[in-house]
């Protein structure tokens, strides 16, 4: 009996994937709760949210949206390529995903430092002199994009780990559920950004 059959006996791909989906549901509810907080405060402070949102750079927001959408496509393609037994292409596609994710974080870094150098950050002098609504807007902006950026960092680490598994052939054409799960996590990050982007950048 080879190692292979033994591994197969102890595998539960369906279970692994179901577990990942249930985890994704908890994430959706977490961000869903934050979106409710955002919408209620927006409803209560329409003018302040309108003014504060104009401070955000639509160009950076759009660029980051494009970056995340493309990276979502490349990780989805990585699954197709591992199914077709094309290991090298799988690694390249995953590598592109990781690079795009890092690019997203670089953009986020410049965006945040730009805001902070203008004195807009929680607890700053300038925000203290602003209206209640603007304080709420920027508090939510930092909390929600910050939590999202944290998810990006986790996603990059996860995908990087799976890249290693692909490299060592622990993940291959007939055993790739962890790659699917890392891709699902990445799409979740994309999904959340799809709503963060219009709510913070576009609706001014």
């Amino acid at each position: 009996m080879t190692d292979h059959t033994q591994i197969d006996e102890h595998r539960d791909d369906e279970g692994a994937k179901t577990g990942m989906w249930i985890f994704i549901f908890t994430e959706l509810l977490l961000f869903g709760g934050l979106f409710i907080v955002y919408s209620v405060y927006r409803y209560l402070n329409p003018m302040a949210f309108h003014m504060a949102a104009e401070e955000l750079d639509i160009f950076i927001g759009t660029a980051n949206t494009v970056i995340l959408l493309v990276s979502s496509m490349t990780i989805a393609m990585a699954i197709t390529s591992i199914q077709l037994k094309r290991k090298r292409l799988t690694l390249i596609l995953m590598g592109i995903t990781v690079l795009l994710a890092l690019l997203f974080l670089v953009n986020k870094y410049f965006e945040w430092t730009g805001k902070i150098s203008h004195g807009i950050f929680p607890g700053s002098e300038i925000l203290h002199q602003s209206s209640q609504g603007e304080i709420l807007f920027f508090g939510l902006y930092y909390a929600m994009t910050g939590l999202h950026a944290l998810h990006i960092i986790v996603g990059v680490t996860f995908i990087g780990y799976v890249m290693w598994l692909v490299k060592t052939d622990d993940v291959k054409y007939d055993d790739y559920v962890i790659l699917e799960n890392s891709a699902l996590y990445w799409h979740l990050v994309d999904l959340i950004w799809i709503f963060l982007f219009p709510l913070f950048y576009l609706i001014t």
Partner: protein
Amino acid sequence: MENGQHAHIVKYKTFVVVLIVLLVFTFSSVGVTQLDLGVYSVTAALIFAVLKSILVLMFFMHLKFDKKIYAVMTAGIILLLTIVILVTFLDYLYR
């Protein structure tokens, strides 16, 4: 999935087409919010966001090709979120 059940292989081309549609929706939502439509710009931006998330869920996250149970569960969670949002706003609008 694998393990002898159906291992549906999605074509690269499908993903490229989905990405193009997603990008078109993104630029449309940026464009439409630049126009001065008042309340409708919020609605328009959110409609584009919903369309985009449906595409991501169906194609990138394989819901269209996987067992139906995943799609049913996802729909259930979205329904739950929608109800909570609705009830919260009923409270704020009519208190």
